[in-house]
């Protein structure tokens, strides 16, 4: 009995020492994954994901409490990158929210510049007392402009299909 205990203890100690050595030799410094995720997110702090900002969303994604497809401005491309990074099965995700674009109804706009100031990406152009317009290239669909508009003249819609972005649908074939 004594021998057995001794042998096992010795063995354990020896292996533990060897492993400790190996851990030192093969030590790796890893960038915390949260930082990596946050760097990938758009960073406009738009809040469409339901979190107060991109860093909170990144934390939630790493913890698994937020779906990797919860970021509409990032779109499908971001979803796929994140799924790969966080090892999430893409098929397990539900439908992603569709990216939206803001449009200003120029018959109602008074040029109050409130939306212009609220936009996190400077996607709204116009000056005081002039009708504002949205640069769709820069709009993330965060709806911050809509929330502040006193005339309620901003609407959010999915990006329209045009000849430039139309493509054949996936065939239903076998």
């Amino acid at each position, binding site marked *: 009995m004594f021998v057995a205990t001794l042998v096992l203890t010795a063995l354990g100690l020896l292996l533990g020492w060897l492993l400790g050595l190996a851990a030192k030799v093969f030590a790796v410094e890893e960038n915390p994954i949260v930082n990596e995720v946050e760097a990938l997110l*758009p960073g406009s702090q738009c809040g469409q994901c339901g979190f107060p900002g991109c860093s909170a969303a990144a934390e939630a994604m790493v913890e698994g409490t937020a779906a990797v497809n919860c970021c509409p401005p990032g779109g*499908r*491309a971001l979803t796929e990158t994140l799924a790969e990074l966080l090892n999430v099965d893409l098929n397990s995700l539900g439908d992603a929210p569709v990216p939206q674009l803001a449009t200003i109804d120029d018959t109602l706009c008074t040029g109050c510049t409130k939306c212009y100031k609220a936009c996190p990406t400077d996607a709204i152009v116009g000056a005081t007392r002039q009708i504002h317009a949205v640069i769709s*290239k820069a709009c993330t669909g965060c709806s911050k402009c809509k929330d502040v508009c006193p005339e309620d003249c901003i609407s959010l819609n999915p990006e329209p*299909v045009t000849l430039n972005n139309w*493509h054949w649908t*996936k065939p239903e074939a*076998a």
Partner: protein
Amino acid sequence: MFSLPIRGSRGGVHPETKKDLTAERSILTQLPLPKKIYLPLSQHAGVESRPQVQVGDKVLKGQLVARSGGSLSANLHAPTSGTVVAIEPIVAPHPSGLPAVAIVIESDGEDQWMELPTLDDPLALSPDELADRVEEAGIVGMGGAIFPAAVKLRQGRRFEIKTLIINGSECEPYLTCDDRLMQERAEAIIDGTRMIRHIIEAYEVIIAIEDNKPDATAALRKAAAGHGMIEVRNVPTQYPMGSAKQLIQAVTGKEVPAGARSNDIGVLVHNVGTVFAIHQALRFGRPLISRIVTVSGGCVKSPHNVEALIGTPVREIIQACGGLNNTPARLLMGGPMMGQIIPSIDSPVIKGTTGVLALTKQEVNEHVPSPCIRCSRCVDACPMGLVPLEMAKHSKVDDFDNAQEYGLRDCILCGSCAYVCPSHIPLVQFFEYAKGEMKERRNSESKSEYTKRLTEQRNERVEREKAAKLAAKKAKKKKTSRKAESEESAES
């Protein structure tokens, strides 16, 4: 000068050519003037061109009506004289049937040309000037590529072009517009070829014609006889010989490296239709306002090639060919292999319309697809050496990385694979879908990066403004406190 041996390209298919429907009939040139002409602003690779006329303006034939909107865009000219009656969205000649803005011209029946400049001998002018004129004339690749010809010429000038290939292969079934053009206007094509050669300063010129067009070959040989340096050469009849990459391989034995352009290996390819348009522009100052269109298919009463004004509704050119004798199963622009269905018979002819085909059900031979049996006929047929069956399988599950890896990145969408597939799988549609999706993803990625940069800039600006405000406030505070101090001291 030595010529490399012709090396057969790989893959390819031999579809029934059906060219006999129109090949023996001369081009109909005197079509009745259409009442209304529809000029979509996007008939070229790049962004829409910008209208230079307004509703109500009178225009003369050949007058510029829209100017190029960017580097890959092209000018548009009025194909006949008349009045601009609208600039509005029409149903685009595109399978999506989406609207596209077009200039609508009501013809006045006069067909009156604007004053055309008198030109010196183009061969005496500088290449750059000639390229400018080609650009001015709004010429795009007439084989269906619709890439602005001037851009291609200028790119060619930046390289040492050893071989200029004039593409007279016309491998698509049914289409004979290039064939007829070569037969009937050989002199003009040779003249245009000389001008292009002059512009890009090519060492040798080869006009490559598929060996099923002996008449065209003979006509061009005769016309080229007086001019050295222009060789008319036959290439094997095989689809897709008319694709630039395959033609280059057949003529020079060289392959264009993936991701590179033919310029990089010292080759430039122009379609005969483009050459003819360049000839018209440089010799007579005529902009591109008409083109030869093959009107064919089992549903057309009297198939012919017609010289149609750009913007003519398809209905009218079919009328000129005796009309339809049946409701077509498919109405196409272009050939059956790579052409596109058009949503309406009222769609206008555009610069890249090589043909208008009204095909019967039997000709199209569509079937409900069944599962892939991995017979690998598509692999054998692929002229690019890809694995279409795997590309489709991965596209189907949206695994685009693997689809790319199996060859989607090199796919030219020629349709050879789908043509031979015994399971009738719409392979090309899978690839179109995958390419479209990937483009969408790239766009959203770049948009995301762009908005990220904007946010950062904005945040910086806001910070700066805040800091400035704070500083101003501080300064003000200081001022007021000093003021108060002084007041205090005054009081005391």
